[in-house]
């Protein structure tokens, strides 16, 4: 066939490098609704749910049982289930119905009913729902802070810059798992240099992550994964009960925790029971609620390549974010993983969370160039900072970030590098040279930094963990090496664990370590003239993008 030049040009477009596949319900490649999904039903006898979504109690798998026993308000189940799904969907977008009323109504419905409700909403309605149902009044944002070399000095500098730019939470992970303790400490120090009160976490193997938290190297945890089918749980040597136990372990030490789920994981792991992605994700979110977690990171997350490959996949993503909010959970709404070669497509995907605002629009945003993002690339990265700030200004939307000056960037990066250098020297962990600090101060990514002695670092880490170094040792090291202000910040972060207020739903801290959560600053949106509006000081801040024409000098 003679080729059309138009079609040839289209074939070259980057979007055509993305992976697409037709719906295939038998293997779970179906977003919103599968012909094999169960019909909603509930039956309550003597205060116990004896039938859930078409299954009798004796047929329950452990997920059904966990949901029936812990995630549904038994006293409201029959009343809520009697309200048609379409009616619930309409109330979600009705500005005259409050968030509290919706939370109450929805607390008695089953996962299959929830799936049905979401299927009645188009993407604009899903966004309207999110605008009302988000837990915290003011939206927030979270960063990924990682690099290809697992260089702790760069982690500290990027954390400081990220905090300066407005992120409320920062998350790190490693290429080499054994680097975790250095990554966690560097992130903790760097974040507080950039802006006091930023929460930090280190995504690692669960037992390691818990230990880092207990030692005070991190101030929250996020990587407690749940799955929508029993088989995937069993393959991971896990159950909903073990996750609830782990959640309680963090709570016992006063640490903020959220779970992680997201559609597509069951497809990727080959065990979907032929159910839709949305239905399986509903099960995950009910388990999260039942386990007592205050919140969730969801929105397909690391399996976005799967969900985005099928029709209505991106609608499903905002759909599952809304389910989290409907269950009263804090929602850190993904946007944290690259999935498209097309700038247009990746931006469109993010607008669904950006426009209505979620508790954390990204979970997280790569605050380094994507080649350094050790979560295999985020949907936005450090090179998109200015684009993002301009979009906030264009739309008058609070996306959680703000423009910064180059002088401030350099200042906080240097100070963070020096603070890590001082702590590592004081605790005799590993050598950080002045040249390394200098390189990291002006670096964009790890291509601009000096190599570290990895073997020496790993030995230093092993010794540090054996010696039982904790967050208090880091505070002491900072205080005794001239970084009293950073020491004071980290001590304040550790105090949060004794106070405990930041364990409330959707909590973040301001620069005075005051908690802002869904409890003391709840979202009160009920249509025009209500809820959070971008104005005052915050609006002035958003306006200050670089490269504006100065009419006085024109």
């Amino acid at each position: 066939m003679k080729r059309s030049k138009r079609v040839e040009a289209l074939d070259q477009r980057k979007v055509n490098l993305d992976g697409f596949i037709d719906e295939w319900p038998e293997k779970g490649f179906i977003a919103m609704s599968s012909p094999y999904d169960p019909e909603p039903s509930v039956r309550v006898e003597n205060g116990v749910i004896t039938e859930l979504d078409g299954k009798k109690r004796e047929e329950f798998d452990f997920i059904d049982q966990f949901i029936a026993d812990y995630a549904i308000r038994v006293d409201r189940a029959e009343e809520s289930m009697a309200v048609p799904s379409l009616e619930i969907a309409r109330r979600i977008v009705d500005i005259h119905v409050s968030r509290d009323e919706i939370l109450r109504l929805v607390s008695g419905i089953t996962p299959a009913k929830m799936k049905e409700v979401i299927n009645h909403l188009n993407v604009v309605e899903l966004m309207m729902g999110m605008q009302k149902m988000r837990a915290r009044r003011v939206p927030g944002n979270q960063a990924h802070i990682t690099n290809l070399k697992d260089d702790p000095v760069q982690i500290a500098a990027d954390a400081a810059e990220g905090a300066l730019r407005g992120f409320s939470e920062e998350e790190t992970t490693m290429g080499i798992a054994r680097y975790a303790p250095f990554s966690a400490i560097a992130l903790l120090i760097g974040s507080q240099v950039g802006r006091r009160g930023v929460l930090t976490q280190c995504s690692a193997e669960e037992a390691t992550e818990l230990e880092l938290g207990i030692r005070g190297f991190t101030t929250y945890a996020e990587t407690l994964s749940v799955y929508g089918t029993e088989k995937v749980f069993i393959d991971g040597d896990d159950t909903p009960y073990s996750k609830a136990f782990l959640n309680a372990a963090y709570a016992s030490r006063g640490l903020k925790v959220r779970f992680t789920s997201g559609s597509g994981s069951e497809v990727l792991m080959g065990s979907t029971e032929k159910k839709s992605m949305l239905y399986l994700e509903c099960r995950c979110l009910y388990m999260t609620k039942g386990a007592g977690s205050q919140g969730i990171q969801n929105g397909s997350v690391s399996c976005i390549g799967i969900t985005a490959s099928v029709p209505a996949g991106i609608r499903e993503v905002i759909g599952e974010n809304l389910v989290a909010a409907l269950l009263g959970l804090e929602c850190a709404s993904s946007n944290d993983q690259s999935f498209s070669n097309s700038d247009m497509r990746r931006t469109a995907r993010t607008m669904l969370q950006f426009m209505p605002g979620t508790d954390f629009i990204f979970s997280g945003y790569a605050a380094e160039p994507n080649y350094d993002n050790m979560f295999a690339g985020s949907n936005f990265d450090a090179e998109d900072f200015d684009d993002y700030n301009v979009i906030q200004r264009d739309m008058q939307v609070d996306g959680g970030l703000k423009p910064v000056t180059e002088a401030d960037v350099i200042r906080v990066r240097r100070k963070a590098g020096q603070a890590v250098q001082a702590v590592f020297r004081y605790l005799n962990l590993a050598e950080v040279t002045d040249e390394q600090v200098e390189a990291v101060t002006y670096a964009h990514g790890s291509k601009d930094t000096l190599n570290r002695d990895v073997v020496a670092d790993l030995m230093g880490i092993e010794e540090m963990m054996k010696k039982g170094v904790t967050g208090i040792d880091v505070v002491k090291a900072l205080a005794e090496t001239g970084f009293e202000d950073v020491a004071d910040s980290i001590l304040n972060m550790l105090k949060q664990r004794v106070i405990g207020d930041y364990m409330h739903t959707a909590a973040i801290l301001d620069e005075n370590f005051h908690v802002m959560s869904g409890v003391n600053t709840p979202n009160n949106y009920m249509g025009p003239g209500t809820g959070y509006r971008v104005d005052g000081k915050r609006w002035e801040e958003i306006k200050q993008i670089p490269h504006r024409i100065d009419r006085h000098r024109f």
Partner: protein
Amino acid sequence: MEINELLVRQITDAVIRELNQDRSAAPGGEDRIEKVDYSGYPRAKQGTDPKEVVIGVGAAFQTVIKNTITGIPLDDVIRNIIAGIEEEGMTARVVKNLKTSDVGFIGLEAAKLSGSGIGIGLQSKGTTVIHHKDLYPLSNLELFPQAPLMTLETYFNVGKNAAKYVKGEKVLPIACTNDPMVRAKYQVKAALMHIQETDQLSPELNMIEWTV
């Protein structure tokens, strides 16, 4: 206590249900490939040789799946890993894991069978881990999560590094690589290959000795 007993019973029931299901071939999925019968193969033995590295491979390895996600022949992959191990003066043994297709568990199970306690997990799509018998399943000595970035040289070095861990040397981990667009390009293909691998599981056979 009641809940615990109930839970234990339910887990047991679930596992048995799952085992039965897997034995009885096709639950759904029209495009199913014939399942390979591994019942005649020798069961994998517990190693005693302190110089050995056990390489655990996925259920579809060299049978249903012959090339990695980027088309590198699995024959060459395994040959290079073994060559790397042997270059360090250690010995290699290959077992096939028919119980799980999760790379972390494949690696850990291999490490537990290994006389040295060091094992390598290798999925048929090319994802690789170096594991130690005493580590948590989802921890590792070195992980290579992005199969599309693997080359024969990397596989050779994986073998070398695994052997160095056996020798108790201070090992410099292989430098990490990262393609931030890997998900867009490969995740659907990865899912399809993982489904193929998972479909080949025969949990009742656990692990078998595999001649490459």
